[in-house]
């Protein structure tokens, strides 16, 4: 219990000082496995003053078919651990069906978490000799739930989070015929399969597999006393498991997913120390423990496949490492899999900082995996926003240590995710290419950049919504239009959602920006404009402004108006409108230009396709 004194004292100090819990404290909170401690943490954190932008605000509604009880505090603690600050709205006891039947969830929540209990799906009385009737009842209850949630979707802006429900022991064990027991279990597993299927029906429904996860962690699902006494369906341990999963959904939705894995070599991607054991002495592949390291490489490769950028962070001589990466027959990761290879004897914190600059990503996008407590400690001290994964101890746990926290979770993969590693690799090449030019303008001309701009298509909405959720730096107003809002706007004749893609001599960057525009009278209002940090410093934003003004001119608009709302993280966009030729209006933070007379602000090194 004393292990958690530091955590609880630290949280208390943060609450008293009205500051955000430090990244180190949040990591402790993320790793705390003791539900009682997490409950206390959640209690304490209820009094935390708003600490934006250190924590991302999120409105979360909890609806339950049972008592919410300790889930409130566990969920709050888990949400703060991942970097969000929730405003929790709890549905009253016994109002689950009523809340959904209203067809709309109050308070415009970002997330609606439904806590489901077996009693919602089981009839009060059921016969052990009529499993067909029981199955039909379970199916009917699921259909009701599905209908109610789908009816709420059009008028509720946020994402619904549901979960699978463990097989009720009473259902399983009431049946003495093993055949009937199998049939009942099958009906219940089908219910869970149907619940999971809801996520495929609508992008705004997410379902976490609580039942599956409880089979893998050493906590009891239920406490019969609390279930019967207080209608509490799950133990604190099971609720914490659920809360952590819900928090991962919240983090992914809030743009807090990590994008980069920086990984060590010696005793992490392979066993042994290359400088001592030599290439032939490395443990890699074959039987234990070599298979552990190769399995980790497999897991890392799968992450890369899904868009995670890899950075090598190793204290070694570069020559022998290149040799192993290129030639070792058991290596699964090869040199081209890494966007940046920092193999040298400099401190790793400096190397990671440099890699972040090269990739134009913040430290908060990084996860660092290393077997050395010294290296992890040093990186944490220098770059507290980097998440660290310990690779020491038995190498059999390497894969789980890396994957279990879900650092890289995203709502869904887009085309850009799939291309990202290659994109960032060509960016690193681009950085190398840039050293041979007299001025950066010469370099930009030689890049032959093209901006592909048009109204968003159905296929692009997912990516555009993702940019809206994830872009923090070049985000002019901070208004985050999700998939639903973007879809609705794109179909409205008075509104325009535009997507912006960029390509250059090194390849296709894909969609890097988006704008949400509303026409009021004859004035075009840019509600928000976002641009991926991947393309900063190339004048893309001015080409976008030029394009918008051009379209407004064609449409006969008398003015284009835009706003800049400082968020603490979007300083990079400060002064954008003025640089694009707009003038400040009487209204604070609003800038306008007259399309008919506006000079072009298209940089000379950027062309629209077809202009060349």
């Amino acid at each position, binding site marked *: *219990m004393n292990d958690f004194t530091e955590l609880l004292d630290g949280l208390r100090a943060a609450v008293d000082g009205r500051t955000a819990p430090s990244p180190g404290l949040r990591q402790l909170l993320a790793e705390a496995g*003791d*539900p*009682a401690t997490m*409950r*206390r943490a959640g209690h304490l954190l209820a009094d935390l003053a708003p600490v934006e932008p250190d924590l991302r605000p999120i409105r979360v509604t909890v609806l339950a078919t049972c008592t919410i*009880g*300790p889930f409130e505090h566990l969920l709050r603690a888990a949400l703060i651990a991942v970097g969000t600050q929730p405003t929790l709205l709890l549905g009253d006891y016994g109002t689950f069906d009523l809340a959904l039947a209203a067809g709309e969830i109050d308070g415009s929540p970002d997330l609606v978490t439904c806590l489901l209990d077996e009693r919602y799906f089981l009839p009060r009385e059921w016969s052990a000799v009529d499993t067909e009737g029981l199955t039909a009842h379970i199916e009917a209850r699921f259909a009701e739930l599905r209908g109610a949630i789908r009816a709420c979707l059009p008028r509720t802006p946020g994402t619904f989070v549901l979960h699978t429900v463990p097989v009720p022991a009473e259902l399983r064990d009431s049946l003495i015929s093993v055949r009937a027991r199998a049939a009942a279990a099958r009906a219940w597993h089908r219910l869970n399969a149907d619940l999971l299927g809801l996520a495929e029906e609508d992008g705004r429904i997410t379902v976490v597999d609580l039942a599956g996860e409880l089979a893998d962690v050493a906590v009891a699902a239920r406490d019969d*006393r*609390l279930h019967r*006494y*207080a209608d*509490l369906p799950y133990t*604190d341990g099971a609720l914490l498991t659920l809360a952590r999963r819900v928090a991962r959904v919240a983090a992914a939705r809030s743009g807090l997913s990590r994008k980069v894995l920086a990984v060590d070599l010696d005793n992490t991607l392979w066993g042994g120390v290359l400088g001592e054991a030599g290439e032939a002495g490395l443990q890699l592949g074959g039987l234990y423990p070599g298979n552990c390291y190769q399995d980790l490489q497999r897991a890392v490769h799968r992450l890369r496949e899904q868009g995670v950028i890899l950075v090598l962070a190793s204290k070694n001589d570069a020559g022998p490492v290149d040799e192993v990466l290129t030639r070792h027959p058991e290596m699964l990761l090869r040199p081209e899999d890494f966007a940046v290879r920092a193999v040298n004897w400099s401190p790793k914190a400096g190397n990671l900082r440099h890699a972040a600059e090269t990739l134009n990503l913040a430290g908060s996008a990084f996860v660092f995996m290393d077997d050395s407590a010294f290296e992890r400690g040093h990186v944490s001290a220098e770059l507290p926003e980097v998440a660290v994964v310990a690779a020491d101890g038995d190498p059999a746990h390497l894969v789980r240590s890396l994957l279990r926290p879900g650092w890289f979770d995203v709502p869904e993969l887009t085309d850009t995710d799939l291309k990202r590693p290659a994109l960032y690799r060509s960016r690193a090449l681009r950085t190398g290419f840039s050293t041979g030019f007299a001025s950066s303008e010469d370099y930009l001309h030689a890049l032959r950049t093209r901006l592909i701009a048009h109204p968003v298509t159905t296929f692009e909405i997912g990516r555009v919504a993702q940019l809206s959720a994830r872009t923090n730096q070049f985000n002019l107003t901070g208004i985050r239009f999700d998939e639903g809002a973007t879809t609705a706007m794109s179909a409205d004749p008075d509104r325009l959602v535009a997507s912006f893609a960029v390509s250059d001599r090194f390849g296709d960057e894909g969609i890097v920006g988006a704008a949400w525009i509303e026409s009021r009278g004859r004035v075009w209002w840019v509600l928000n404009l976002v641009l991926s940090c991947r393309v900063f410093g190339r004048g893309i934003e001015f080409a976008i402004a030029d394009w918008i003004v051009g379209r407004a001119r064609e449409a006969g608009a008398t003015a284009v108006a835009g706003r800049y709302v400082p968020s603490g993280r979007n300083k990079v966009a400060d002064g954008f409108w003025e640089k694009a030729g707009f003038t400040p209006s009487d209204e604070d933070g609003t800038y306008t230009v007259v399309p008919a007379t506006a000079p072009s602000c298209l940089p000379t090194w950027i062309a629209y396709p077809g202009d060349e």
Partner: protein
Amino acid sequence: MTELDDTASVVLNTLSEVLGKPIGELRAREVLATHGWDSLSSLEALSRLESRLAVTLDLRAYHAAHTVTALIDLVAAAATSNAGAGRRG
């Protein structure tokens, strides 16, 4: 510290945290109901006590304990029988 004293201090600390009252005040007015002891706070205390002391309490007996002393006695009895069971096993 004897085992009993140890258990008593865990119970008192837990009650003090859950009910937000100093231990002295709990000792001065023994009846739990005067300190806001309701179904929510009692279950919160139950969860903490069971987790800290690795005991399982009978819910009927737990709810029947209306005073601080009665609760300490109940938890101490459960802790002792648990430890005894452990030794036998």
